[in-house]
C-alpha cells in the first residue's frame, strides 16, 4: 500500500515538473487538474478500512479539482480570449531546474525532519514540500493571471498532500471546507480575470502595479 502511495506521489512530483515545463496555458491547466485528481484518490489508499466519509471527500476532491475548477478556468480563458502562450519571467529551463532542485532539497530535508515512524518511509512530506515549492515558482515566475491561479492551485495541492499526514486527526469537515473555498476562489478569480482583461486589454499582472488613482 505504501508502495502504491509512493508511486502516486512520485507521479505527482513528476507532474510538478511537467507543469513547470509546459509552455501553453491549456496544458498547464490539464497538468494541474491531473495532479488534483491524483491527489484526490490518495485518501482511499491511505485509509486502512473503507469509510464512506473518506470516500465522499475523495470523490468531491476528484470532482472539484478534476472537473469543476479546470472548466471554470477554461471558461475564464475563453471569455477573456487570452492567447495561449505563456510569457514567463523565469524561463522554462530555469524554472525546471529550480523545480528539480526544490524536489531534491525537499527529499533531503524530509530525511532530517523528526517524522512519525509510519511516515518516515513515505514520500508524503517530500512530495508536499516539492509541490508547494512548484506552486511558488509558478506564482513568481509567470505573468498571466490564469497561470498564477494554476500556481496557486498546485500550491494548494501541496498543502493538501501535507494534510493527508493528519487524515486520521483532522475532521473531514475541514478538508471539505478547504475544497469549497478553493472552488469559490477559482470562481471569483474567473470573474476578476474577465475584469482585468476588460480594463487593461491584457492579463499581464505586471500592469496592475502601474495602477494609479
Amino acid at each position, binding site marked *: 500500500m505504501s508502495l502504491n502511495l509512493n*508511486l502516486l506521489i*512520485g507521479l505527482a512530483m513528476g507532474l510538478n*515538473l511537467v507543469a513547470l*515545463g509546459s509552455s501553453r496555458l491549456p496544458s498547464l491547466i490539464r497538468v494541474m487538474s491531473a495532479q488534483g485528481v491524483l491527489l484526490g484518490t490518495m485518501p482511499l489508499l491511505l485509509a486502512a478500512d473503507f469509510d464512506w466519509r473518506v470516500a465522499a471527500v475523495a470523490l468531491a476532491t476528484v470532482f472539484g479539482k478534476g472537473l469543476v475548477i479546470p472548466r471554470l478556468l477554461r471558461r475564464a480563458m475563453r471569455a477573456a480570449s487570452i492567447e495561449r502562450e505563456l510569457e514567463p519571467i523565469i524561463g*522554462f*529551463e530555469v524554472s*525546471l*531546474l529550480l523545480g*528539480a532542485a526544490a*524536489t*531534491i532539497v525537499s*527529499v533531503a530535508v524530509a*530525511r532530517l525532519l523528526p517524522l512519525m515512524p509510519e511516515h518516515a*518511509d513515505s514520500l508524503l512530506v517530500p512530495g508536499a514540500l516539492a509541490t508547494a515549492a512548484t506552486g511558488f515558482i509558478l506564482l513568481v515566475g509567470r505573468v498571466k493571471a490564469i497561470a498564477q491561479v494554476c500556481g496557486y492551485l498546485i500550491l494548494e495541492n501541496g498543502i493538501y498532500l501535507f494534510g493527508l499526514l493528519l487524515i486520521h486527526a483532522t475532521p473531514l469537515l475541514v478538508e471539505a471546507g478547504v475544497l469549497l473555498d478553493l472552488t469559490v476562489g477559482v470562481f471569483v478569480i474567473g470573474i476578476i480575470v474577465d475584469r482585468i482583461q476588460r480594463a487593461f486589454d491584457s492579463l499581464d499582472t505586471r500592469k496592475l502595479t502601474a495602477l494609479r488613482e
Partner: protein
Amino acid sequence: MSGFVGRIALGVLWVLLAPLLPGIINRVKAWVAGRRGPPVLQLYYDLHRLWQKGVVQSHLASPGFIAGPAVAWVAVLGAALLVPLGPAGTGLSFRGDVLLMLYLLALGRFATAWAAMETGSAFEGMGAAREVTFAVLAEAALVAAMLALSVQSGSLSLLTMLVPSGGAAAVLLAAGLFTVLLAENCRVPFDDPNTHLELTMIHEVMVLDHSGPPLAVILHGASLKLLLFSVLLVESVLPVRSLAPPASAALLAGGVLATIVGVGVVESLLARFAFRRVPLLLLTALLFCVFALLVAWQGGVA
C-alpha cells in the same frame, strides 16, 4: 572475455555489427512511410564504396583533418570495448572504467569538432558549435545516469554496475538514456540525419568537407556510437547480464532491436524540434537521470 584473441574477436564483433543499426532504422522509417526503403546492409555497401574513393583535402587543412576522424573512431571503439556486450563480456574491465568510457566519448566528440573546423568553413564551425553546446547537457545526463547505476550497484566498473534495479529507477533511466541516445547520435528530434540544409544540420554539417575513407570512418564511428548507446540502454534497464549466455544474448539482441525500432518510429512520427526547444528536452533527459539517481540514493539509504 579474456585473452588477446578474445579481445580482438570482441572488437571485430563490435565493428561488424555496428553498421547494421542505421540500416534497420531506415527500414523502419521506410516501412512506416509505406516505401520499400534501402536494403538493411546499405551502410556496408556505402562504407565499401567510400573506402575505394580518393580523398579531397583543402589546402588550408592541417593533418588534423584526417587525424580527427581517426582519433574519434578509435576513441569510440575503445569506449565500446569497455561496455559489456551481453554474455561476451568486455574487452577490458577495471575499477573506474566507466570514467574512461565517458572521457573517451568526450574525446571522440572533441576530435570530430576539431576535424570539422580544420577547413575554416563557417558552416562547419557552426555545426561544431551546436554539437558541443547540446553535448553540455547530454553529457551531464549521461554522467547522472552512470552515477545512478553506480550508486544502486555500489560499483564503479561497467561489468558489475550494469545491474538493473527494476521499478521507478529503471523507468526513469530508460526514458533519460533513450533521450540521450537520440541526442548523442543526432537523431530526430534533435537533428535530422537526412537533412542537407546547412541552417538546420548539426552532425551532418560537421562532416560536409570529408570524403572517401575519412568519411567512411566517420559514418562507421557514428554507427558504432549508436550501438554503444543502445547496448548501454538495454543493459541498464533489462537484466541481461544475470541470464545464461544464450538467453542473455537473445535478450540483448531483442532489446537493442526494440530500441532501434523505437528510434525509427520516433523519427517517423516526430519532426525535428526548433533549436530553442532542444535545451528544454535535453534538460528533461537530465532530470530523468537525476531523479533515477535520487531514487537509487533513496533506496540505498532507506
